[in-house]
């Protein structure tokens, strides 16, 4: 039972995005960034549900969707294992696309505050170096 992924999902229950989709997205992101390595076991449905205080069905729905997509594979008696290799650099476009909606929000807010793009980029850089 080694190689259990130790990480936390950050779930926002009052977001408009269904909770199971938040979990799916975060598993994929963690894999993409290499935080979860291939062949690692995810925490069990019960553990995740208990930790996040959400319905176990929600977690198992996320896991089984990921299984269908070939991201995870079920190993009898041991749980869900990460099958997918972490995104190679070739997937850069895809990763970029994921960030676009968030950046769009930033753009809207920045123009409301009449902040120039250059200023926004500076702020972002500063955050990065924190």
């Amino acid at each position: 039972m080694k190689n259990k992924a130790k990480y936390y999902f950050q779930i926002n229950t009052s977001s408009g995005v269904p909770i199971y989709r938040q979990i799916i997205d975060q598993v994929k992101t963690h894999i993409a960034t290499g935080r979860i390595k291939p062949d690692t076991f995810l925490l069990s449905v019960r553990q995740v549900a208990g930790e996040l205080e959400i319905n176990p069905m929600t977690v198992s729905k996320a896991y089984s969707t990921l299984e269908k997509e070939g991201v995870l594979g079920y190993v009898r008696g041991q749980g869900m294992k990460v099958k997918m290799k972490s995104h190679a650099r070739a997937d850069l476009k895809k990763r970029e696309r994921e960030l676009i909606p968030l950046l769009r929000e930033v753009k809207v807010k920045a123009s409301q505050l009449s902040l120039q793009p250059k200023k926004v980029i500076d702020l972002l850089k500063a955050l990065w170096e924190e």
Partner: protein
Amino acid sequence: MADFAIEMKNVSKELGRKKVLRDLSLAIPKGSVFGLLGKNGAGKTTLIKCALGLVRIQAGGITVLGDDPGNLHEDTKQKLGYVPQSDRIYPWLSVKQIINYTASFYSHWNDQLVHSLLNDWDLDSNDKVGLLSEGQAQMLMIILALGHEPQLLIFDEPVASLDPAARRQFLKTILKIVSDRECTVFFSTHITSDLERVADRVALLKDDKIDFCGELDVLKDEVKRLRIVAPVDISEELNISGLIFCERSHHEAIISVRGFKPEMKIAIEKQLKAEIEVEDLNLEEIFLELNR
């Protein structure tokens, strides 16, 4: 039949001259945590009472755990747990006494569970029931309904008088129960944030009918708010299926729709040459939109 904990078919119920439920059908799958939403006075309590056979229906049919609620078998009653909206029974008894009294009605009683819940919720078993606060009394009623480990739990506004900490405790307890054993939980509420955490299915009761019934995730996928900015005047020509509400000026519109699909966004963008932003709505916002 066996797949549903509660099944209501074409149920009608009048209270006096008022139709509360009209030709209403609702099926609650076994093992689900099912939330019933509706405004005050929508008929949530009446629906629950019908399902339990506490009031007679004028038309239609209901089964509870495969049994007729008007004439429940002893066995079925042992499998049911129900907490009404407000009920303070026997104020002269102590917490301990009312627990023993309740336990005596059931062939199975999990004393250990009851005591750990009393402990979790800071209830003193020597306190008199009549002296408990509204919230404490509600907690006690919930505990009493859990003691015999029922297969079907029905709560009418279970968290209405609980403080946020107690509400969390309640949700935790429910989640623990449904992950430990096969149990269906059906509860009414208007506190949507609680529902969002635990429920996998919801039904919305509106104008004596079920307006939506299904998975919470599906509801969230299907009800969206769209912000449309078009180069042309769009104050006249918005023909969108599933439109719930629309607010617009010349070039901009904010609309809410049900039955949303990603293709819809593309179609409208093409039709109006517009830019559209799709906004996800949480359950509270959906509730407000659907009740417009």
